[in-house]
């Protein structure tokens, strides 16, 4: 295995004082990036940006190169609108702030909602959860258990009921209770299933009958171990629901989640949270510099 220093040494040797990075080194860079699921398209984009920088700045020292690479990758990640992004925050003046959580099957939607609810609750916010996954076996029970763990109410109509009406009632309850935040769980669905994608648009429309701007946030959850298919997921969910934020889960494993770089860049959607385990506290606010660091640290192996 190549070491990290090795890679940067090699990269610098090839670019220092040159206006063009040579083929072999670029192949190595490509290898490193695609190995983190960054994907060929985004990788080529990153390489082009580095070539441009090198051409512009003429001379690049070894230490600068490391920095440039990190900067260029970080630059592709959208800035989190909620600011610096170390603490969980809700925009002022919106009450209740309605978050609808969407994504393909098994990515970690329900778990992320449990963790989010816990963090908001700990921050002194009043939270209501809506169990609008009425389809997957025991999905409602799963959310109810999370609600009990956190100590927040879960609005549910049971299994096989209309998810849109659950969402409506959850939002209504949020207003009645003077809640700060309402989080709606939805069933996992593959983005190529048109009927299921339309259902999401319907859930949204029905909520809007009660609060016109709801949902204020549509959080698309992506599994950090997913490869290039995540791009298609982002494309279709964005079409159906105007995704406003991303969460990447399961980053406690060896997967790097690199595919999110291209997604954040292409769709101009910030990554807000990362999931780093199954426990209630295993949710972090996304920090793009740390994320980029972890991307490059894999070659240490």
């Amino acid at each position: 295995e190549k070491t990290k220093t090795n890679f940067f040494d090699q990269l610098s040797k090839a670019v220092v004082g040159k206006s063009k990075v040579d083929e072999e080194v670029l192949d190595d860079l490509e290898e490193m990036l695609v190995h983190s699921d960054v994907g060929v398209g985004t990788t080529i984009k990153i390489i082009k940006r580095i070539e441009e920088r090198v051409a512009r700045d003429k001379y690049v020292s070894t230490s600068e190169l490391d920095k440039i690479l990190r900067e260029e990758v970080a630059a592709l990640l959208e800035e989190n609108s909620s600011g610096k992004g170390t603490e969980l925050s809700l925009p002022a003046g919106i009450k209740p702030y309605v978050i609808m959580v969407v994504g393909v099957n098994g990515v970690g939607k329900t778990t992320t909602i449990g963790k989010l609810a816990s963090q908001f609750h700990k921050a002194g916010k009043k939270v209501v959860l809506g169990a609008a996954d009425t389809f997957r076996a025991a999905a409602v029970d799963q959310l109810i258990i999370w609600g009990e763990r956190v100590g927040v109410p879960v609005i549910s109509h049971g299994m096989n009921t209309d998810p849109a009406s659950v969402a409506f009632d959850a939002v209504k309850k949020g207003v009645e209770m003077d809640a700060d935040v309402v989080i709606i769980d939805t069933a996992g669905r593959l983005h190529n299933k048109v009927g299921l994608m339309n259902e999401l648009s319907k859930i949204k429309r029905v909520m809007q009958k009660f609060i016109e701007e709801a949902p204020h946030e549509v959080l698309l959850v992506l599994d950090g171990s997913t490869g290039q298919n995540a791009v298609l997921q982002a494309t279709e969910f964005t079409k159906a629901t105007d995704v406003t934020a991303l969460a990447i889960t399961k980053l406690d494993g060896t997967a790097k989640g690199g595919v999110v770089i291209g997604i954040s860049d292409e769709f101009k959607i910030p990554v807000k949270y990362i999931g780093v385990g199954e426990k209630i506290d295993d949710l972090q606010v996304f920090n793009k510099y740390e994320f980029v660091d972890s991307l490059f640290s894999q070659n240490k192996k």
Partner: protein
Amino acid sequence: MFDNLSTKLDRAFKTLKGQGSITEINVAQTIKEVRRALVDADVNYKVAKTVTDKIKDEAMGRDVLIAVSPGQLMVKIVHEELTELMGGEKQDINIKGDPAIILIAGLQGSGKTTFTGKLANFLKKQNRQVLVAACDVYRPAAIDQLKVLAGQVGVDVYSNLEEKNPVKIAQEAIAHAKQTGKKVVIIDTAGRLAVDEAMMNEIAEIKRAINPTETLFVVDSMTGQDAVNTAKTFNERINFDGVVLTKLDGDSRGGAALSIRAVVEKPIKFISTGEKMEALDLFYPDRMAQRILGMGDVISLVERA
């Protein structure tokens, strides 16, 4: 953001088109494009490299007949290599034993519990007496989930809400199966990461304690480059007999299948194609090779050439 496979190969084959023989120089660019196409189909980068190196040798070694264009030959070679790598024939699971014990393992959310229900359904339809065992003691409502699915397909569930040790529950389930004359026991386990030492020890311990007839590793077909790490570690720890590839009703290329196959050399035995209990299929290597390559695209490409 990404060109589709067809566009990519089209571009690559342009380099080859009209040239009578495949030479080192004109094949290099094509090989690179094929490799990128494989990587974009989520084939592990290293595996893609090995595969394309082989393809390159193959291409160099073959004389190009005058009637065949180099592009067509390349497609043929790539397809042949992938099909061979995917493992030739399909393979069944072993359900000999009284009862036969099938252990299910894999990452979180990969589709283990759903597959447990599906396999129970599949075996029940062959008139076998099936018991499913709820050995996920961690995930909220995991036991309820299995109960609901078992109810849907009409098989019994063994669970023990008082017991927190999955090894014990698995052993109890097998004893229960013997008492009640069940012929197959399917053990659903919690999702776990390959890097989670404690959880990996647990699954190894379960396997040791129950000595299953068949151990299946369940993996999401949308998995990217990491599929290799995961499969390797699970294989080292539990030496599984086969792989179940899930969520193939999506539009992933499923390159992970090729990576896993190449790295652990274990057959893929089932594919899961939906959330319903009937959505289970046997695995056909040639179809998977076509899916990864996007053969629909490739065939039309050849026709245009």
